[in-house]
């Protein structure tokens, strides 16, 4: 099933995968942080901060992520 942004526009498959990537990262940081080594946690946060820009640019309205530490 194709993914849509908040404006109702369909995302291409490649863009949809970037969105999934971001959501996976956010999910890991939200629920599995204690399992991560420092290098895993901090690099995941940095990746999340970068992918947040993609989410924002795709009009996925990612909200704020301060509660995740980014």
């Amino acid at each position: 099933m194709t993914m849509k942004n908040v404006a109702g526009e369909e995302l291409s498959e490649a863009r949809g995968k970037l969105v999934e990537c971001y959501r996976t990262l956010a999910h890991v940081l939200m629920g599995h942080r204690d399992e991560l080594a420092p290098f895993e946690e901090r690099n995941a946060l940095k990746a999340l901060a970068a992918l947040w820009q993609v989410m924002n640019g795709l009009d996925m309205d990612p909200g704020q992520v301060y509660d995740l530490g980014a």
Partner: protein
Amino acid sequence: MDDSPYWNPRHETMPRADLDALQVRKLRNLVEWADMQVPWQAKRLRDAGVTADTIATIDDLQRIPPMTREDWMEGQLEDPPFGTNVAAGKDLAIRYHLTSGTTGRTPIRVLDSMKDWEWIAEMWCYGLWGFGVRPSDTVFVAFGYSTFIGFWGLHYACEKLGCLTLPGGAMTTEQRVRQIVEMGATVVCSTPTYALRMAQEARQLGIDLASSPVERLILSGEPAGSIPATKKLIQEEWGAKAGDTAGMTELGTIMIFECASQPGGTHIIEDHYIEEVLDPITDRPVGYGEMGERVVTSFGRGFIPVLRYRTRDLVVKVPAATCGCGRTFDLYDGGIRGRVDDMKLVRGTNVYPRAVEALVREFKEIDEFQIHLYTAEGRRDEIEVLVEIPDPDADGDRILSDLARELAGAHEALRFDVRRVEAGALPRFELKAKRVLDERTVIGSDGERRVQA
């Protein structure tokens, strides 16, 4: 994607109606965030009857009370050191920066999280990419890398783009010029004043910058990047295209940039900001083509929500179609035209430093200048322009008289004394130039008269 002229093609070419809808959506999110996280903002919003769910159109923005620098400073005094407009804890910040302090006032202090810092670089990416900077470029950043935010965001944007990024901090001007040439930099970033200073140094070193690989200059920090005569001079000295940008510490990054079409103005990054232009006296919105004060709302930095911040910058907004680049982002014709408080009233005539610079830069022989205001005989305002003309063969007398005539002609026949001073006598600047020296003891018209301490 290197062949795309746009950093975010969909947003930068979005039809106006869609862009308006995007802004309304983001405004609603911002109001909700500020209301929830910042008691100081919540009070202002609630007092004005504004909640996220009452925002339906872009016109609802007008219901939000504007915020001033004074409000910001009061907040810092009330809750030092970062103030009352902070939406997250300091433990989440990874950067701390300050305003440059060129006005002599207490600086504004800001914090950024990891995500905000990425966003700050993202805004610079719009400008760099839009002006033609690509991953293959070698970028020299002529900047002091201090707590002043300056080109920090640009540096990280260059890394994001994949450019070879040369940090030019803690160097003399000679070292910078030599490194630009030795490393084959293709892009140089500095203030307009410092671009001219480096060109001057290169001439003294016998280096011809126009034949160097430098193809583009990214200018920021002063309005001069959009003054045609100054820009022309910079482009001639460097043999490169110069693109203007402007930002502010309060936002953390740039909000406008000049695209590769060089339309004589700067595009507003409208998918991340709402830029209003208001009459500074009546606070009413002014139309396209009319000068007014910039009031900015930023959707970027969540740490410090910026809702209708009065910038004191003077601008003239023109429609996107003014530029042929295909962007639907409106522009500020001539970039930032000056500051509301820049204007000097001299014997009843308004004098804007930018307008003086535009005339001075028509004379290539003039290396540096200063506008000096003083009180004569304890009661009369006088204005003089001090100029350096280093070439001993230049016809100094002709330059002085021509410049004086042109200045008077542009200022209702106001008399300017134009004087030549020794080469090297005037101050040089790496960051924001301060070329106005106001030593008047009695200033302005009757209504404004005050005696300096």
